[in-house]
């Protein structure tokens, strides 16, 4: 495959950034998208130029580190697939490929295609802890959990925190991410004691970090490499309204 790449190049957070057009010749269709970028980088290094900076780690679709806007779609054209799992054969027929970083005020570009997603870490941090007894592992069946609840918790917990939902959202909202994190603990008995405090704090930090809010476009669900449903956002909304109207924080009282 012979391709023309239009890659976003940005020297640093304060640089304006621009597209650079790079040729990618003799690309095997069996290469992964990131291997193709590696090859282009090697050529750039040979020419004494600065290689393209991009995020990657496990390259097997489970770590959530890679994140590229490939031809206007987060993680590229395949659904339920991260950018690292895209192979060049999936882009068959394309002669020009546009590669951009996630764009959102809360995700400032560090360099080229690398963005700072630590705002998501701070949302997680705001979620606090769950009340789990420490000590010897308890019997597996000591806390009964309904199958449907366990399944729902797993469907939410599958979120790898890649930020594709924010990248796809016209409002740059991290509601799908936040709702998945609120959801996976909220479905389980262990997550109940802090359930309402958690949603209040996480939504607060979500707003403070400069994310937008959801208008139910559904782009996040379609972009999510793990297929997380917008139904979790609905559940977060319900929890937040309930928490704001009725939740009473724990207070230390005299015995």
């Amino acid at each position, binding site marked *: 495959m012979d391709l023309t790449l239009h890659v976003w190049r940005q020297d640093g957070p304060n640089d304006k950034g621009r597209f650079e057009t790079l040729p990618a010749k003799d690309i095997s269709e069996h290469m992964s998208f990131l291997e193709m970028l590696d090859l282009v980088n090697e050529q750039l290094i040979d020419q004494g130029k600065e290689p393209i900076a991009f995020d990657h780690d496990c390259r097997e679709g489970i770590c959530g580190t890679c994140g590229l806007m490939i031809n206007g779609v987060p993680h590229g054209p395949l659904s339920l697939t991260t950018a690292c799992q895209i192979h060049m054969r999936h882009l068959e027929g394309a002669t020009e490929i546009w590669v951009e970083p996630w764009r959102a005020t809360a995700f400032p570009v560090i360099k080229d295609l690398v963005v700072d997603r630590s705002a998501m870490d701070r949302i997680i941090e705001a979620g606090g802890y769950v009340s789990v007894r420490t000590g010897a592992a308890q019997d597996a069946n000591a806390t009964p959990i309904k199958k449907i609840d366990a399944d729902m918790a797993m469907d939410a917990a599958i979120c790898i925190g890649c930020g594709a939902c924010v990248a796809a959202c016209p*409002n740059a909202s991290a509601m799908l991410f936040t709702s998945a994190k609120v959801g996976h603990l909220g479905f389980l008995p262990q997550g109940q004691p802090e359930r309402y405090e958690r949603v209040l704090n996480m939504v607060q930090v979500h707003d403070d970090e400069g994310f937008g809010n959801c208008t139910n476009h559904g782009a996040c669900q379609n972009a999510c490499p793990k297929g997380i449903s917008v139904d979790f956002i609905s559940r977060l909304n319900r929890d937040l*309204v309930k928490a704001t109207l009725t939740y009473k924080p724990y207070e230390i009282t005299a015995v």
Partner: protein
Amino acid sequence: MRRVISLYRTSVGKKFYMAVSGFILIGFLVAHMVGNLKMYMGADSFNHYAEFLREVGYPILPHMAGLWLFRIVLLVCVGLHMLSAWQVYTQSRNARGGKYTKEESLHFAYASRTMRWGGVIIGAFVVYHILHFTTGNAHPEFVHGEAYQNVIIGFQSPLVVAFYLVALVMVTFHIYHGLWSAFQTVGANHPKYNAYRRPLALVLALLLFAGFMTVPVGVVAGVLTI
């Protein structure tokens, strides 16, 4: 009360108020549409209905008090709906930052893209509609109390009918996305009923479109005459 206000402080809370005011406004639209169909029952019937709206609650309430109570509720809903929409919009606009050079649409329905500019058109239309048929300022031959005649004369201009058509298409999109979206926002979400929310929004949006459009179309087609 403090909690009701603090709910408005969060982005999700703003949307909750947008959703609840939206539900009330959709309820109003259904009643308004059904009332409009009285046009087909003749001038006397329609004028009597118009008169009744002014006298709702009388003599328990003073003359027109029922109507004004109703109008105040609607005004509060419209105000809250627009204010929250504006605030969520500015939050989102600041959050989006840079635009993508190339971007594919991944949304569920095109209608969701029309909510903001469509809402502005609907707002402008509502102002015009009140000047047209309530106060009569934008009406060529407005006669107070002659509701039936006012409607027939009001729809003689094809331009007016065209504007009503455009506004109603926007309302249809607005309700198709808005009703479903409002269910999501208030958390009315259950695996058993989720499959019915989209069709309900579609059917209601189309019913409202057909019901409202039938009057201007009826006038243009000559079915409704003085």
